[in-house]
C-alpha cells in the first residue's frame, strides 16, 4: 500500500529515477490506462471524486477548475496546460523537492491533466534559479519523448502533447496565474483582469489551465491507485497527502510528505525535531510568507485547510516559517515587507506605493527611528492594502503577516519606539 505517492521515488542522496526505473515502480500506469480507453470525461470525474484541492496556496478544487474549460466541437481547438513551477513564496521549497527528486512524476501528471482538458501543448513555467530542477526535467522530458510518451499520437491514442520548458526571469508575481500567462506571452508580468478567466481565455487568448507542481503530482496516484485509496490517505477533512515544510530555528528543518489532518505539533516536534536548544517557539507562519501568524497555543490544530482558516490563517503552501523567542518579530515582518515591496509588479497604487512605505517604516524601526505616527501608518496600511482594494492578492497577502504581527507582537513594536533600538540585537 503506497502511503507517500508524491515522494515514494525520492531519495536525495542519488539522482532521480530515470524513465525505466520510474516505470518499474508503477510509473506511467495512468498513461497506459488512458491508452486502454479511459476518456477525458472519465479522468475528470475521477479527479472531481478525489476531492483534490490545488496545492499552490489557494486550495481551489482541481476538478472543478478543469470543468470550466470549454469542451466539444465548438470549443477552441488549441488549449494549454501550464504548470506553475515559479515557486517563490517565502519559506517554500516543496515543488523544488518534487522536481529535483522525481521529474517523471510531474510529467505523468501533466499528461493526465493535458489529456483531460485536451491540451496539445503544455508549459512548465519554472523559477529561473531552479537550475537543478531544470536539468532533471529536461532529461526526463527527453526520455519521455524517446519513449513515445510525449509527441504526436501518444501510445496510439490520437492524443498529442508537447511539453515546453520555460525558465522564468524571476518575479514573485509570476506565481499569480494570470501574471504568469502574461510573462509567458512575453509581456509585463502584471495580473490580468478577470473575467475572462484563464480556463476560458488564458494563454494567447485560448483556454488554459494553470496548476501548481504539487497539484499535478497528485494526479498519477489518483489514477493508478484509485479514488478510494486516495481518500484513505488523509487523517483529516481534506483528501490526499501534502508536502509540509518547516524552516526557521528548529533542529531538523526540512520537507516531508504527510497525510492532511495531522496536528501541527506533530510536524514541528516529531518531523522538524522541535526548537533548537535554548529557544522557545514564539509563533509561526503556517503556509509561507503571506499567511497570518499562529501562536504556540495553536499547536494542536490539525493541518487542514478549514481548521487553520478557523483561527484566521491559511494552510496555503503548507510550508511553515518558525519564529523563535530570540529573533525579533519586527525584523521578521520587516524582512517580509521588504520582499513584498520589491516584488510588487507596480500595477496598482496601494501595492506599488503602499508597500515601499511600509518597508521604509520597518527599516526605521530597525534603526531605532520608529515612531508612534509610523506605527499608526502601519496599522492604516493593514486596511488600505487589504482584500478588495488591490488588483490582485499580493498586497492582501502581505497584510497577513503585517496585520497579525502588529497584533501578536505589539509590545515588540512599542519597545522599538521607546528604546529607540532593536533590543534583540547584541
Amino acid at each position, binding site marked *: 500500500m503506497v502511503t507517500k505517492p508524491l515522494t515514494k521515488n525520492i531519495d536525495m542522496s542519488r539522482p532521480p529515477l530515470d524513465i525505466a526505473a520510474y516505470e518499474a515502480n508503477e510509473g506511467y500506469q495512468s498513461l497506459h490506462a488512458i491508452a486502454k480507453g479511459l476518456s477525458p470525461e472519465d479522468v475528470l470525474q475521477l479527479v472531481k471524486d478525489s476531492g483534490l484541492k490545488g496545492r499552490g496556496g489557494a486550495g481551489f478544487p482541481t476538478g472543478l477548475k478543469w470543468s470550466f474549460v470549454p469542451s466539444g466541437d465548438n470549443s477552441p481547438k488549441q488549449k494549454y496546460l501550464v504548470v506553475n513551477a515559479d515557486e517563490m513564496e517565502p519559506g517554500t521549497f516543496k515543488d523544488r523537492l518534487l522536481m529535483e527528486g522525481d521529474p517523471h512524476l510531474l510529467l505523468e501528471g501533466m499528461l493526465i491533466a493535458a489529456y483531460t482538458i485536451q491540451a496539445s501543448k503544455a508549459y512548465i513555467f519554472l523559477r529561473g534559479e531552479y537550475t537543478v530542477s531544470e536539468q532533471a526535467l529536461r532529461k526526463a522530458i527527453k526520455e519521455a519523448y524517446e519513449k513515445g510518451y510525449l509527441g504526436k499520437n501518444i501510445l496510439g491514442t490520437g492524443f498529442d502533447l508537447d511539453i515546453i520548458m520555460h525558465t522564468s526571469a524571476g*518575479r514573485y*508575481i509570476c506565481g499569480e496565474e494570470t501574471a504568469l500567462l*502574461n510573462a509567458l506571452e512575453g509581456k*509585463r*508580468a502584471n495580473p*490580468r*483582469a*478577470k*473575467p*475572462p478567466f484563464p480556463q*476560458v*481565455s488564458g494563454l*494567447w*487568448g485560448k483556454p488554459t489551465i494553470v496548476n501548481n507542481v504539487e497539484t499535478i503530482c497528485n494526479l498519477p496516484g489518483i489514477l493508478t491507485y484509485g479514488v478510494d485509496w486516495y481518500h484513505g490517505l488523509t487523517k483529516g477533512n481534506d483528501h490526499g497527502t501534502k508536502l509540509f515544510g518547516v524552516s526557521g530555528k528548529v533542529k531538523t528543518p526540512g520537507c516531508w510528505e504527510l497525510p492532511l489532518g495531522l496536528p501541527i505539533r506533530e510536524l514541528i516536534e516529531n518531523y522538524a525535531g522541535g526548537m533548537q536548544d535554548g529557544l522557545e517557539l514564539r509563533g509561526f507562519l503556517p503556509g509561507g510568507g503571506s499567511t497570518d501568524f499562529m501562536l504556540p497555543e495553536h499547536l494542536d490544530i490539525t493541518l487542514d485547510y478549514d481548521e487553520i482558516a478557523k483561527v484566521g490563517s491559511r494552510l496555503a503552501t503548507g510550508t511553515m516559517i518558525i519564529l523563535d523567542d530570540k529573533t525579533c518579530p519586527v525584523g521578521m515582518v520587516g524582512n517580509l515587507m521588504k520582499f513584498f*515591496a*520589491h*516584488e*510588487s*509588479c*507596480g*500595477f*496598482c*497604487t*496601494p501595492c*506599488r*506605493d*503602499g*508597500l*515601499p*512605505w511600509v518597508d*521604509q*517604516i520597518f527599516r*526605521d524601526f530597525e534603526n531605532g527611528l520608529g515612531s508612534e*505616527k509610523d506605527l499608526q*501608518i502601519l496599522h*492604516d496600511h493593514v486596511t*488600505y492594502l487589504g482584500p*478588495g*482594494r*488591490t*488588483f490582485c492578492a499580493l498586497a492582501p497577502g502581505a497584510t497577513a503577516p503585517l496585520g497579525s504581527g502588529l497584533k501578536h507582537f505589539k509590545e515588540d513594536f512599542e519597545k522599538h519606539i521607546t528604546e529607540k533600538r532593536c533590543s534583540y540585537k547584541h
Partner: protein
Amino acid sequence: MAKIVIDGVEYEVNPDNNLLQECLSQGLDLPYFCWHPSMGSVGACRQCAVKQYRDEDDKEGMLVMACMTPASDGAIISLEDEQAKSFRSDVIESLMISHPHDCPVCEEGGECHLQDMTQMSGHNYRRYDKKKRTHRNQYLGPFINHEMNRCITCYRCVRYYDDYAGGTDLSAQASHHHVYFGRHEEGVLESEFSGNLVEVCPTGVFTDKAFSQHYSRKWDLQTAPSVCVGCSVGCNTAPGERYGTLRRIVNRYNSEVNGYFLCDRGRFGFDYVNSRERLLEPVKRVDNTGELLADDEIKAVIKEFSREGTIGIGSPRASNESNFALKTMVGDENFFAGYSDSESESMAAVLTLASDKAFHSPSVRKIEEADAVLILGEDVTNVAPRIALALRQSVRNKAMDLASESRIPQWQDAAVRELAQHERSPLSILSPAVSRLDDIAADRVIESLPALVAMGHQIANKISGSAPAATSPEHDAVAEKIAAQLKGAKRPLIVAGSSNGSELIKAAANIARALHEDGEDAAIDLCLLVPEVNSIGMGLMAAEENSLGVALDKLSSGAAKRVIVLENDLYRRAAKSQVDSALDKAEKVLVLDQVTTATTAKADVILPVTAFSEHEATYINYEGRAQLSFQVHQCQKMAQPAWRWISDAAHIDDLVERCCSEAPGFAKLRDVLPGENPFIAGMKVPRQSHRYSGRTAMIANVNVHEPKQMEDKESIMSFSMEGISAQKDPSIMASPWAPKWNSNQSISKFQDEVNGELKQGHVGSLLFEKTASGSYFDVPAVAAQPSGKQLHLALSYQIFGSDELSARAEPIRERMTDAYVGICPEDAQSRGLAQGDVATITPTGAPVVVCIRTGVKPGTALLYCGDANISPAEFTGLLEIEKSAAQATSRGISSLIVSDFQEEEI
C-alpha cells in the same frame, strides 16, 4: 436603459457602461486617473473606489472600483460612504508620496488632473516623511519634455502610445515603485501622435516642449475654438496666445471629428504664425525692393485689379470667405483653382462621387466603426494623420465582437486585448511602398501605381460582375480574399485619395459601387482624402474647367493681363517654367499671403494676410463638413483676412450669407455660424479666462497706461475676461473648465454623456447633398511603361514637411528630411547609388537624397518633394535618376524612422 441608485438618488443609465463612466455622465464628481474615455478601464490606479451594496438590506457593502464595475440594473452604490472616501484619500496619499510637489514650476500646473483629483479626494496633509524615489529623464525629441519624478504610474501613457496609437518605442519598464515610462534609450519619440501624451498624462511627466520655450499658464492664454489647417481632416483645436504670440495648440473635443486626439503636425506645426517669414505690411515692388503702400495706394491697386483682364487664382489653404471674395471680385469665369492640374482632375472625381447616393463619406468616428478596410494607394498616416489613428481603432472591432461573445464589457480594455490577442478586423493596404499602418494590416500588396489601379478594378469586378473587368494575375488570390472580406463586412470602408492622381480614386469608387450593388441599399463608406484644409472648399468654388494650367496659359498668352494670387505658392502647384512664363508675362501680379514664398518673390504688390489664428473663417474638410474657426488673437501688424483687402463686405457673416446663396454647393454653410441670438444680456463670450492675469501690466514695458481692450465687432467673442461663460455653449468653448475640474478632463461636464456630443454644441455642417446615381468608371488604358533607365513614379508624403505652412514651424523642421527618392536595393545597385547619396532626377534635374527602402517595388521610385521647391507637377508618371557629385545637406534623411525603410512582417 437601467436604473441604479447612487447615494439614495435613482438614475437612468446605460448598462453597457461602467459605474465611473455613468457617474461622470450624470455630472457627479468621482476622481479617477487610469480610466480614459476613449481607452476604457484597467483598474490600475484604484482612485475611483465606491461602496456597492448587494441590496437595500445590505448595510455593510463592499468597496469596488467604479471603472471596473458594470452599471447593471439595480446597482446600489455610494460615493459619499466614509470608507470609500477614506480609501480614495489614501490612494491619493500614496500616489503623492514621491511626487515632487513642484507645481509652481510645472507646465501642467493650473490644468493638472492630479491637482484636481488631489483636491477632490481630500488629501491635504502630508504624512510621508521618508526619502522620495527619483528617476532620470530622457530626451524625447523636439516635441515632448520628460519629467518622470512627477509620475503617478497610472499607465495611461503607454496604454495610449502603444495600445491605442500603435507606437513601439515607449514602454513601461522596471517594477514595484520604480516603474519607469520611457524609451529603451534616449531619442525622438517615433509616433506621429506623440503630442497627445501631453493631454493623456494626468500630470506633468509629458509636457509640450515647444510651449515650454515660451510658457504661459492655461488661465493666462487667450483662446478660442479653432480648426487645424494642417490637412483635410479639420481637427478641432484650441490655440492659445499670450503677449501677441501664438503659444500652443491643444485638442478641442469634437465627437465626430478628432475626439480627444490630434496629430503632431497639427499640435506642433503652428509656429510659422510667429515667424520672421511672415508678411506683415502691404508693399509694392520698386526696383528690387519693397516699399510700404499707403492706404490710397492700396485702394488704387484694388481698383486696378478690379478691371477687365484680371484673373484670380484661389487657394486650398485659404478660407471659403477669401476664395469667395476673390471669385466675386474677378468674376466666376476668371476664378481659377489654386492646386495642380492633377489635383483638379482628382477633385472633379471626388466632387462627383460626393453627390452620389451610393457612397457615404465617413467622419473620423464612423471610420473607427469600419469592420473591413481597404486602403488603395494612399499613405494615410502622412496625408491625413488623424484618420490613420482612427483606422487603428477600426481593426479592433473584431476584438469588440469577440468580447461581446464572451460577455466581456467593451470598456474592460486589458481583458478585451488579452482575449483578442492578434485577432483584428481585416485591413488591407495596396500601396506603392511600406506604410506606417502595415503592422495592423491583414494583407499588403506593394505595386507600381498602374498595377494598383488595375488591382483595384479587379477587386471591384470580383465583388460585382457588373463592374468593368480588369486583371492582375499576380495578385489574383489576394484580390479574391480582399473582395470576400469587404463583401462579408457589415461596415466596409474604402480609403483612397488624390495623392497620386484620379485613377486610384476611380478604382476605389468602383469597389465601393460594386459593394453597394452587391449589398443592401445602404451607402458604402468611401473616404477620399485630399491634401489641404480647404481643398474641398476650393474645389466647390472653382469651375471644373478653370484649372491652374488654363490660368497660367491665359497669362502666358496675354489673354489675361493681371493676376491675383490668393494665399498660394504656384511653384508648388505647377512646373517652374510654366509659372515663370505666366508671372513674367503678366503685367501685374498681386499676391495675398501670410508668408514669403517663391511666388511672393515675383509679386508686384503684396498684401499681408492673417494666419488661421488671427481671423474667423470657415473651412470644408475631406467629407464635406464645413466648420467655423474663430479668431484667437489679433495680428499685431497690418495683416488682414484676405477677403477684407479685396471685398467690401463689412462682416464675415455677410460673406458667408452671400456665399450660401451665390456659390453652388455652399447652401448649408450658414449652419456653422453661431445661433441667431447667442448673446445673453448683450454680453459676448470672453476669449480670456476668468483668471486671466496681468492685463493691466502686460504692455507696461511700452506704456504704463492700460489701453482699452480691443473691441471685436466681427464675432460673438470678445478680447476680454468679461462676458457670459463660454461653458453655456460648448460649441464656442475653446478651453473646457468646470468647478473642481481645471484640466482637459473637464470635457465630460459638457458632453451629453461620456464620449457623446457636446451639449448644445454642433459638430459642423455637412454640405454635400446626395442627389445623383452614378455609374462605374472605365478601366483606364494601360499606362506608359518605363523604358531604359526610367522608373514608375509614385509621390510620397511626410507628415512633417509635406504641408507648406507647418513645414515652417521650428519643432516640425527638426523632424523634417530633405527631398528624397526612395528606390529598392536592386534599382539602387544597378545605378550605383548608395543610401544618402545625392542624385538628380530627370526631367527637372533637381537634387534629391537617395533613400534605399526594402518596401518599394523594383521599377518604382518614390519621390518626396519636401520643402525643396520641386513641384510634383513636373513629372508625368515616369522619371530617371542619375548619381550626382553634390553633397547631401546636413538634414539629409536621418529623421526617417526605421519603419519608413523596412518591411514589417505581416
